Every structure is written in C-alpha cells, then in structure tokens.
C-alpha cells in the first residue's frame, strides 16, 4: 500500500509543478499577468465537456472552445487570438476541433480577479505537423462574411451589427441624449 501511495506522489508531483513556459516562443503583450505557455492539448467544446451538450464539429466556431491540456487534464479557456483587434479565439481553434494540437501563447494568471486558466493563443499546429498556423484568421473571415462593409479603417468601425447597436443606443449604451451631454463635457 505504501509503495502504491509513494508511486502516486511521484507521478502527481511533477505534473503539479510543470512549467509550460520553458519552450514557449510567445511574444509579450506587456500585460500585467501574462505568462508564456506552450503545451499540447485536445481542442474541445466546453458545453460538451461539462454539460454533455455536444455539437458536430464544435459548431464550426460558433461556440466557444477550450483546450484540454494533456499534461494535467486542465481545461484552458482561450479568450483571445493573436490580433490586437478585439477578436476571440474560437474561429482559430475550430478547424482543429477534436484534434490533438500544440499551442503557444500567453496564460493570464491573476487569481485575485478570477483569471485562472485563461489564455491568449498565438499559434497552433496539429501534433506531428511542422508548420504553425498563426492565430490571426478572424479578421480575414470577417472580411469574407461582410463584403458590404469593405472600406478604410478597422473592422470594428465598419461592422454593421456594431453600428446598428451604436445608432440605437449610443457609444455609452445610454441613449443619444446621454452621449451628447458626455461628449460636450469630456471632449
């Protein structure tokens, strides 16, 4: 029995102490709580993992996706892709749904505000592949999906759905009158 317990301790301890930053090539975003992290994982659907509510092929990126890290079975939630453009990670991970991948990026580790096991993914590759895919497809997908919004400036200034919301409720979300008073006061 003692031998079994000793073996369990020896197996479990290195996993708990694993440093995922050692081989990372992630670029810094100069964030207060960023920690480089490169690891292998399975791309999965959290609704399926947690609630048994599964969809074919992760619903093609319409759902949020997670990474089940192989070293410790931790569920990592990628919140962000590698574009400084207010863009998430689901579209980047969706082509790899159900696959074993290697990712490199930044963990955000600030337990005081609840930031635990959340991630910015910078590059992805299927395990066994040589080539990395940079996690920057979101804006290309958006351009293809919104040809009527082509033009100058970043996507978020041209997005029809965002413009509709701002037209209806203002930049503060409190209506045109509040916007007008705020702009007169602050600008």
């Amino acid at each position, binding site marked *: *029995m*003692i031998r079994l*317990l000793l073996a*369990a*301790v020896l197996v*479990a301890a290195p*996993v*708990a102490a694993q440093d995922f930053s050692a081989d990372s090539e992630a670029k810094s*975003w100069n*964030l207060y*709580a960023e920690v480089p992290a490169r690891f292998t994982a399975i791309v999965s659907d*959290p*609704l399926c*993992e*947690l*609630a048994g*509510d599964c*969809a074919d092929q992760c*619903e093609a*990126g*319409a*759902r*949020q*996706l997670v990474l089940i890290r192989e070293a*410790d*079975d*931790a*569920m990592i*939630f990628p*919140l*962000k892709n590698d574009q400084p*453009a*207010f*863009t*998430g*990670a*689901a*579209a980047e991970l969706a082509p790899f749904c159900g696959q074993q991948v290697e990712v490199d990026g930044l963990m*955000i580790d*600030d337990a005081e*505000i*609840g*930031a*635990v096991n959340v991630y*910015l993914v910078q590059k992805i590759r299927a395990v066994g592949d040589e080539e990395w895919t940079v996690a920057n497809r*979101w804006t290309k997908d958006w351009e293809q999906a919104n040809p009527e919004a082509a033009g100058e400036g970043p996507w*978020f*200034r041209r*997005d029809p*759905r*965002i413009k509709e919301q*701002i037209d209806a409720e203002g*930049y*503060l*979300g*409190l209506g045109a009158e509040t916007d007008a008073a*705020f*702009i007169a006061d*602050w*600008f």
Partner: protein
Amino acid sequence: MRHLIPLAAATLLAAPAYAATEGERVQVTGEVIDTWCYFSGVMGGPEAVVGSAHHTCALWCSAGGIPVGLLAEDGTVYMVLKMEGDAANAGGDTNLHIASHTLEADGMLYRRDGLNYLVVENVTADRDIINATHTDFGVTPGFAIPEEAAQ
C-alpha cells in the same frame, strides 16, 4: 499505518484538482462583461472596463467572439457558455444585444479548474445598463468614440 495518512495527504495535494464537477442550479445577478479586457488589464483596471465607460469596447469584443461573462456583485466572474438557449456564443447576436446589461439569470453552474462556467437557461430580469462608469472614467479605450463623433 500512521505513515499512510501523510502520504495520502501528499498525494491529494500533489495531484491536480482538475476533475469536472456536477452542474448546480444557480441564480446569478451580474453585469455582462467582456472577459478579455476584464482579466487581462489591457485597457486598464477592472473597474474601468465595465459599465457605460466600456460599452463600445464591449460591443467590439462581443461581436469579435471574445467570451462574455457575468460579473456578480461579489466580484465572481461566471463564464457564459450559452445564453437563453443560444449556444452561438462566439460573436452571436444574443450576447451583442445585452452587452454591459445587468441581468438576473437562472441556469446551471459548472466549476472546473478554477473557472465558473454558466449555462444561462432563463434571463429572469434585464435591468439594462445601470453601471454608469463613464462619469468616473470617460470611455475606455479613449478612442472608443471616434473623432468625428466627438466634435
């Protein structure tokens, strides 16, 4: 035998506490937030990236597919996986229309690896935007309102 107890304790401490838990029905009142800006600090401190000050950025991030959360009054963040039956949670319309709103929600809570995951089944009340942070912080980021609109 007395050696077994510390060994067992060491095993429990060393093994990662990563097992999924059963869902639990909960009622949560909280603000629909952009979890990336809130957790990363990329736009400033947590108090500046909620409410009306951050509403335009919350629209950008929601449309951009960044996960939304419900920020409860006690500071707990619930990562929303489904909103009132809508699983199109990466950039879908449902979350966009309620950016920065304070909601009363009923749903199932799943805890795993330090995060709270919430499947919202019913929004029992929508209080609209009640967190008027623009009076303290202006807008975050500062370019949220374009120059031509600010003149």
